[in-house]
């Protein structure tokens, strides 16, 4: 269990891993996530189940290297094991036949939006997808998204591929031209993107579901660290979510909370990089002396 069976480099900073996790694959549904721990010293980090194969007993994780844990994860190779893979956590996406829906995926958010778009398509919806990234190199799964979408709009911030725009631009146009058709919008990506998607859909009164990525520890409702403020009260993202009505979220509070450990995260990354460099130097040194002594 917990073994990495496949690793793909989707971009410089985005990796895909297929992990052996039969118990989780058996139950996983779109919208759910797992918590992984690399080793005994690692923190517990939440990652969306981007795909699963019940027969093969595997789940697919896609992650962006943003700090220590994800950098370290990127160094794992096929055959390595995670110390922990626990899940599926959170509530599944509420999939129904809504009519026409829009799925917005930003950056690594393309990974979690994919199973949702697929499930919505399978449920008979007309799916319009918008995917975006900073630059072309950070885009992935265009083919997969195309396969489950009736329409696919691609944006990059720098115009290196698709339209030069933020995802909110084509979304706004869609709402202006076909607003009455659109029954629901899903948005997954950086918190700031989900905030602006919610602000964009608000005047059109289109229900908007976002998948929040708060900081988590246990993922079972035990610590309250993942709590979020909605207009209807406080919720725990790991058990009540991760999907919520984007129009209810107190975004500024959320943005502040996910920044809380920034200084320590920087320290952790530096400490780790330093250690890695040191290990490299030691290894080189050892290689050299062993050559020198003829061992």
């Amino acid at each position, binding site marked *: 269990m917990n073994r990495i069976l496949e690793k793909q480099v989707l971009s410089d900073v985005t990796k895909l891993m297929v992990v052996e996790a039969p*118990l*989780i694959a058996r*139950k996983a549904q779109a919208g759910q996530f797992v918590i992984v*721990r690399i080793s005994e*010293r*690692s*923190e*517990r980090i939440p990652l969306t189940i981007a795909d699963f194969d019940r027969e093969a007993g595997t789940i697919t994780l896609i992650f962006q290297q943003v700090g*220590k*844990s994800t950098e370290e994860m990127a160094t794992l190779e096929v055959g390595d094991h995670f*110390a*922990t*893979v*626990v*899940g*599926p*956590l959170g509530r599944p996406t509420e999939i129904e036949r809504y009519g026409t829906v829009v799925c917005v995926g930003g950056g690594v958010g393309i990974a979690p939006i994919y199973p949702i778009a697929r499930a919505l398509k399978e449920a008979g919806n007309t799916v319009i997808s918008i995917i975006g990234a900073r630059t072309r190199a950070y885009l992935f799964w265009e083919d997969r998204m195309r396969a489950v979408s009736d329409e696919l709009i691609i944006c990059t911030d720098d115009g290196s591929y698709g339209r030069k725009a933020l995802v909110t631009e084509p979304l706004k146009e869609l709402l202006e031209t076909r607003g009455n058709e659109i029954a629901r919008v899903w948005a997954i990506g950086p918190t700031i993107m989900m905030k602006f998607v919610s602000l964009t859909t608000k005047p059109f009164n289109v229900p908007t579901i976002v998948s929040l990525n708060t900081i988590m*520890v*246990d*993922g*079972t*409702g*035990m*610590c*309250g*660290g993942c*709590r*979020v*403020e909605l207009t209807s009260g*406080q919720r725990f993202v790991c*058990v009540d979510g991760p999907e919520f009505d984007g129009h209810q979220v*107190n975004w*500024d*509070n959320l943005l*502040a*909370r996910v*920044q*809380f*450990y920034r200084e*320590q*995260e920087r*320290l*952790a990354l530096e*400490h*780790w990089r330093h250690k890695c460099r040191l290990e490299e130097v030691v290894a080189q040194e050892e290689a050299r002396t062993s050559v020198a002594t003829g061992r």
Partner: protein
Amino acid sequence: MPKKEIVPKKTPMAEQPPAERIHNFNEVPYGYTPEEAIAEARRCLECKNPRCVEGCPVGIDIPGFLKLIAEGDFQGAANLIHQANALPAITGRVCPQETQCEVVCALCKKYEPVAIGRLERFVADWEAAQGVLPVPPLPPPTGKKVAVVGSGPAGITVAADLAKMGHEVTIFEALHEPGGVLIYGIPEFRLPKEIVRREVDYVRRLGVKIVTDFVVGRTATLEELLQEFDAVFLGTGAGLPWFLNIPGENLSGVYSANEYLTRVNLMKAYLFPEYDTPVARGRRVVTIGGGNVAMDAARTALRMGAEESIIVYRRSREEMPARLEEIHHAEEEGVQFMLLTTPIAFHGDEQGRVKELECLRNELGEPDESGRRRPVAIPGSNFRIPCDLAIIAIGQSPNPLIPTTTPQLKIGKGGVVIVDEKTMKTSIKGVFAGGDVATGGATVILAMGHARIAAKAIDEYLRTGEW
């Protein structure tokens, strides 16, 4: 027999000095030496009707084991304790003796009671020091399978008892390390994790399988477990933290005690960055609450480098539910107590980080339904406590994950699973429950007591099939 000479005070137990211990996570009391233990055990009056036994929720033969200690037969004392209590090294350290076995000790009328908890701890530690505890010979397998959900004191006790009866037991635990609150909540300086690991190891050696990283209600539902197992015991504890529901509670730097203690204990944030999980290190830390959890959080904050650690509690000192020893240790270590104080709002800075806790002062009014005088806020008495970290430790209730995924499971007030107290049976055939999940946040010894009742009832159910 000549009349015994009464020794008025407990034999003192050596402790790490406060100035030193606030810089480390090592255990505070060192425990008795054999000579001290024998001297303390001799203080017992060997009462004909020992009230102490009634005070102990699991009815340990206290005068019996004290007598064996007094005679120097420590192994005999250990064996006797084990008949009623599976985890004496733990309960000796964490039981609220002053409201249980010791408060009713005959000596209490005039003097200090016998230090029953310390002696229980002594015997358990002595036994552990003799080497690995051998497992008893097990009966032939019954072929019956039991799932135990949760690996806190309730879960590990029920698992051990059932394994000794020949049943095949699997524990499912949501976290990556077994032990429940004993691992993630109660800090090292009060209960060394070594002891918890020893108990868990013992259960493993009895043949119990422990599956970590398995969340019942998600990885598999209770119903699915029932298809594979002949009976299920729910020992999922009371892990859902309560919040105050006051403005500013979601500012950065406001933690539940569960989160704070889990980061430090389970995730070892005190070893950051060697371990990856960070925790905020406050300079001025305010902890809200007056129970063991609050004391643990406030004392942990000191060890994490706080210059000031302040406890805010809405009633007066006499009403604090924490163990006396914890309050006393906290005071020695310099924790400040702001009593009769009710928090009404957190205030933050531009970055959304907590910087002050606004409170009202209280006076004591009429007694409430718990018989304690109700704190009544004095209008206009608002004042603010500057702080850069706040920890909320006002209580917790059972996690709703299993109830919400098991609609047939009957739930009572405060989210507790309803059980028949004589058998710990729930409303679902084949499902038993005990410990904090059935009571709301209580004590280790009660959880263990429930587990022992449940183990008997489960065994009977497995043998007869009768519900």
